[in-house]
């Protein structure tokens, strides 16, 4: 590893890295998403055609990844706000990261069926 790449490791640095990576990914999706939505000004057919690709099993998996990125970024963002504005925040930053990850896992399990259910039904019938 090149010198200067690792700050201190552990929860603080890795949550910061994950926050960056998810943030950049979400921003790039946002560009694409505004463009595809803009097709409603072209024609209903053009819009429905593009949205049809969003309903395919592979894109459903990407949507699950998008939900994962957004939920982590949202929950960890609230943790960052707590660290910055709550006087006891910095002292509890590690504990708060584990809470963030716990809530994230629960929400991701909850999102499994709604986001991926239709893809599973399409792939394996019924």
């Amino acid at each position, binding site marked *: 590893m090149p010198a200067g790449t690792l700050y201190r490791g552990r929860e603080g640095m890795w949550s910061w890295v994950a926050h*960056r990576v998810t*943030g*950049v990914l*979400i*921003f790039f999706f*946002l*560009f694409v998403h*505004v*463009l595809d*939505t*803009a097709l*409603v*000004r072209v*024609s*209903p*057919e053009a*819009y*429905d055609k593009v*949205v049809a690709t*969003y*309903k395919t099993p592979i894109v*459903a998996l990407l*949507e699950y990844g998008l*939900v994962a990125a*957004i*939920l982590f970024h*949202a929950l960890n*963002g*609230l943790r*960052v*706000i707590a660290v*910055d*504005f709550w006087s006891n925040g910095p002292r509890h930053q590690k504990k708060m990261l584990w809470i963030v990850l716990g809530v994230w896992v629960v929400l991701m399990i909850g*999102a499994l069926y*709604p*986001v991926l*259910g*239709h893809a599973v039904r399409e792939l394996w019938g019924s």
Partner: protein
Amino acid sequence: MSTTETTASGIGPVEGSGTLSGYSPENPAPLIEPPRKRTKKTPKSTRGNFEMAAWLFMRLSGIVLVVLVIGHLLIQLVLDGGVSKIGFAFVAGRWASPFWQVWDLLMLWLAMLHGANGLRTVINDYAERANTRLWLKGLLYTATVFTILLGTLVIFTFDPNIR
């Protein structure tokens, strides 16, 4: 002034003082300002409050975006059949209500500005050459303005009877 000449103390001609350095009371060495020292040329304030405002904006917009985006995900991907029900008719139904128009407009502006400022920070952190930063940020701001304007135009000019 020879560079190969050494003194008995082991101090080279550069570090050494006296006649070897070429400086003397009559010919003093130039004064070197300490870095970041305030001089007469330094403006009273070297920076405005922009970075602080940007820092605060990230936190305030972040809180609002948590509500707007998670609500958006629930509506689009979870409730009422998830992604399967999305289509032109579904968009037309939602944008018939000013409430959802304002929701989506606010989400568009806040998310784009929040994301653009985030990427600005990333560019500042990793692009080491001033020229690279200039071009990347130019590209970022162009794409951001274009996307915000396009999205705003689409929300305001949406026509359910386009066909």
